[in-house]
């Protein structure tokens, strides 16, 4: 079964780029070919679902391949109600979006091959995240969605705001993704396994406090917090909700897919996934409740205030996501019909985005105040918009009403369970956001379609019928499930029966006269009144004040970091090359002595005892060589002319080569001597060209002042000597050489251990080294090439 699932998940990943290759050939027919890929995924997911589905319940099965065995990470996937639901939503929506974008991106857009490729990559990333069982695999795909969403949002990269939108989305989701990684790793450490299903089976029914000792609970809380931040970042919850409206710069099919059905749902998916683990941990429900309901309120109010067509939809999405996260906050009262809520949002938000796309496609402007009277031009879209709009508003007869109904009853239940008090805030927030939602959806329907055209200048061309089909299908789904909820509810309950262990209550349009119905009706009434009031004042007050928008703070933070970088940079870079060398060496010296004294003093001391130096094998020639070395290195400093310095330098080279011979290391001596000669040649050639006096540029600190050089050189010398002495300490390190010398003959069949190491044991390093050598030469040639070109112009 694993390979059908793998096909489903990885088919878009593999076939996506091929679309890129074949796009120039079949110009606008690429859409049809692109539609095949989501079909493959759908069929494979359905096949896997059927294989897993037995006697009315989805049996959670894991399947996987070996990936990194010694870290215990394997490429394993979990197929259960949650992943199947999300997988199907993602792939079906993918199919509809590809069909829709086939007409949206008419053939003038030459790089629609690129668009489809990114879309497919995104789809495979989503499927991978949704089905992932291993936490690390989950994160890998999670970040992959981040990257592909960056590519998709910034698709029309010539426009400035799409670039900033893409950047903002990427930075936010990326950073929160990092926190998520930290959380997941913490979880893996605590549970000593990175396999999700094992963790769940480990916990079983008992609460976390019983499994873990009290001092581990804070770590669990930290892991929970980090994972939640990751989820909130992805689903644009309260502190991070600024990136979603800015991501509207993406082409509309992308926002229809990413920002209604797929990417923003990842946060919710993660909450559902982590629910069995953290549900008994205190603080889980409260955070979800608070963050969810606050986001809902903010989203509702902001959507009421904004004018841009897609902006309105973006803020309604933010509020709806808050609604869903908040609903999970009520988890203690049993997870019922959560999939019903999510499906509701997918249907109406997807169709609304596509409707907006059609409007923009045919008129060209986004500002709602300029649009009007489109009903006559595109009646089908007008109908779709009304149904979807009403479902968003939650008017009876649509799916939205039922999900609101469930939410209201749950919130009221929560209130009297916890005995009022602070808990009254949640119904209040729900009331405000629902009211604003109703007003905005009515405005959206009325302004765009049924009022007379505002300014006649806009040329309206009639969209093709097939173009209006996908949103119509979605809104039909919303209407159908709204009128006959029980049929859909039955299937959905099987999906989530695996995890939630709660027998869901009966879904129906009408639950009889009770408090939730009254509350719902009052919301709808106030919504209509708000709409009428706003209509009378002709929506002049709209427009959100700059300080409320979080994105302004985000952008100013980014610029702040850039400025900081400039200042630090200007301090550090110096003009004279020697100073760079001085900085590097002084860094080594300082860091060595700091580390040396703080940690290693204990076993540094035997160096100075010197008793372990084998003095018996010392021959007086060693002393001669040592003194020669000392004298010639003093000559290097003492000599005035550079040429004499070189001569003294090569004398030291010869003596060091001699030293290696004294200690019976012919290979080393050979290498030392040859490198010495080659380096000498290079330096002499260069120096014969070097201008006599280097122009001394001004620098913040004059690194080459003799005092400074003195200190660094003494420090460096002392560092080197102590390093060597530490290395030759008999006790300090286990000698690795013994291993090589012992079996150089047996394994590598060569008695010269030095060479066998180079070529055989550590062949991989040598391969790396020679590649570095060649790359370095290319670098040098590069410098020389443009030096030759530039000397013609400026003879510096």
């Amino acid at each position, binding site marked *: 079964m694993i390979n059908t699932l793998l096909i489903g998940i990885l088919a878009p990943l593999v076939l996506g780029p091929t679309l890129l290759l074949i796009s120039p050939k079949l110009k606008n027919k690429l859409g049809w070919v692109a539609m095949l890929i989501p079909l493959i995924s759908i069929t494979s997911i359905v096949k896997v679902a059927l294989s897993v589905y037995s006697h009315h319940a989805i049996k959670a099965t894991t399947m996987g391949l070996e990936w990194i065995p010694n870290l215990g990470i394997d490429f394993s996937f979990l197929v259960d109600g949650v992943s199947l639901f999300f997988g199907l939503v993602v792939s079906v929506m993918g199919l509809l979006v590809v069909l829709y974008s086939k007409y949206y991106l008419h053939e003038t857009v030459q790089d629609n091959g690129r668009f489809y490729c990114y879309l497919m990559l995104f789809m495979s990333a989503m499927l991978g995240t949704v089905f992932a069982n291993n936490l690390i695999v989950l994160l890998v795909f999670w970040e992959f969605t981040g990257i592909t969403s960056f590519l998709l949002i910034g698709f029309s990269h010539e426009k400035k705001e799409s670039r900033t939108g893409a950047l903002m989305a990427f930075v936010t989701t990326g950073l929160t993704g990092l926190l998520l990684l930290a959380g997941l790793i913490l979880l893996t450490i605590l549970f000593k396994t990175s396999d999700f299903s094992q963790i769940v089976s480990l916990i079983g029914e008992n609460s976390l406090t019983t499994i873990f000792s009290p001092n581990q609970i804070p770590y669990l809380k930290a892991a929970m917090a980090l994972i939640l931040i990751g989820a909130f970042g992805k689903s644009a919850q309260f502190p991070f909700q600024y990136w979603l409206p800015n991501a509207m710069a993406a082409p509309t099919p992308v926002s229809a897919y990413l920002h209604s059905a797929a990417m923003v749902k990842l946060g919710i998916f993660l909450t559902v996934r982590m629910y069995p683990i953290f549900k008994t941990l205190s603080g889980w429900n409260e955070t979800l409740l608070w963050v969810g309901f606050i986001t809902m309120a903010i989203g509702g109010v902001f959507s009421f205030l904004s004018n841009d067509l897609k902006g309105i939809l973006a803020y309604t999405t933010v509020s709806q996501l808050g609604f869903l996260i908040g609903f999970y906050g009520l988890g203690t009262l049993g997870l019922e019909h959560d999939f019903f809520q999510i499906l509701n949002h997918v249907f109406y938000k997807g169709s609304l985005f596509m409707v907006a796309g059609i409007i923009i496609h045919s008129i060209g402007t986004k500002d709602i105040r300029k649009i009007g009277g489109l009903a006559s031009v595109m009646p089908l879209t007008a109908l779709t918009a009304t149904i979807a709009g009403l479902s968003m508003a939650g008017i009876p007869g649509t799916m939205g009403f039922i999900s609101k109904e469930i939410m209201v009853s749950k919130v009221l239940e929560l209130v009297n369970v916890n005995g009022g008090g602070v808990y009254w805030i949640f119904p209040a927030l729900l009331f405000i956001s629902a009211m604003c939602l109703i007003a905005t959806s009515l405005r959206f329907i009325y302004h765009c379609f049924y009022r007379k055209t505002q300014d006649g200048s806009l040329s309206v061309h009639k969209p093709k019928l097939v173009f209006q089909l996908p949103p119509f299908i979605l809104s039909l789904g919303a209407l159908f499930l709204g009128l006959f909820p029980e049929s859909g509810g039955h299937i959905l309950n099987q999906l989530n029966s695996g995890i939630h262990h709660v027998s869901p209550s009966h879904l129906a349009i009408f639950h009889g006269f009770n408090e939730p119905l009254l509350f719902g009706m009052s919301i709808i009434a106030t919504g209509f009144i708000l709409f009428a009031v706003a209509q009378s004042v002709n929506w002049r007050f709209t427009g959100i004040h700059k300080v409320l928008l979080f994105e302004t703070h985000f952008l100013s933070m980014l610029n702040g970091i850039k400025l900081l970088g400039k200042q630090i940079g200007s301090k550090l870079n110096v003009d004279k090359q020697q100073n760079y060398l001085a900085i590097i060496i002084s860094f080594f010296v300082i860091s060595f002595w700091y580390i040396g004294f703080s940690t290693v003093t204990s076993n540094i001391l035997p160096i100075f005892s010197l008793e372990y130096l084998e003095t018996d094998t010392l021959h007086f020639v060693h002393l001669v060589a040592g003194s020669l070395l000392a004298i010639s290195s003093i000559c290097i400093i003492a000599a005035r002319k550079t040429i004499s310095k070189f001569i003294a330098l090569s004398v030291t080279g010869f003596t060091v080569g001699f030293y290696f011979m004294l200690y019976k290391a012919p290979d080393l001596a050979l290498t030392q001597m040859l490198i010495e*000669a080659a380096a000498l040649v290079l330096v002499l050639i260069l120096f014969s060209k070097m201008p006599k006096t280097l122009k001394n540029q001004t620098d913040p600190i004059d690194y080459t002042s003799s005092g400074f050089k003195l200190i660094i050189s003494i420090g460096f010398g002392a560092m080197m000597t102590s390093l060597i002495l530490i290395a030759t300490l008999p006790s300090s390190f286990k000698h690795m050489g013994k291993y090589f010398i012992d079996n150089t003959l047996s394994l590598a069949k*060569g008695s010269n251990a030095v*060479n066998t190491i180079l070529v055989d044991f550590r062949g991989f390093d040598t391969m790396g080294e020679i590649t570095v050598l060649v790359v370095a030469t290319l670098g040098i040639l590069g410098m020389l090439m443009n030096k030759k070109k530039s000397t013609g112009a400026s003879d510096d």
Partner: protein
Amino acid sequence: MTNTKSHILESVSRLIFLFIIIFSIYLFLKGHNQPGGGFIAGIAASIPLFLLAMSLGVSTVKRVLKVDSLTLAATGLIFAYGTAFVPTVLGYPFLFQKMIHTHVPILGELHIGTPVLFDLGVFMVVVGVSTKIIFSFLDVVNSKEKV
């Protein structure tokens, strides 16, 4: 400043060029058992090239070398990567060194192995790299008047 060329230097460098190259190949071949090896032989081979370049000028050495030294380095890389990846194709682990003990008619018992190929790659890379760098610097130095 008379740019007198020392004829003795030219003739001597021409003479010992061959001997040092032979010596470096000798160093290369015995590398596995006695001191030597690809890297050392590489530089030992590039020393006479430098000598020729300094005495007879870079153009003559380029003529002697016939092939551009960077391509030499590139072939060296191919050799090294070849010996690394070919075993994986044949089913052995990555970088697997095979020893062959054959009896060659003239030379008698021959113990040759894939490390020699790898070493040859290293040898070529080192020669190619050092000569390329030194020659390009020599070109820059000789081509322009004093800065």
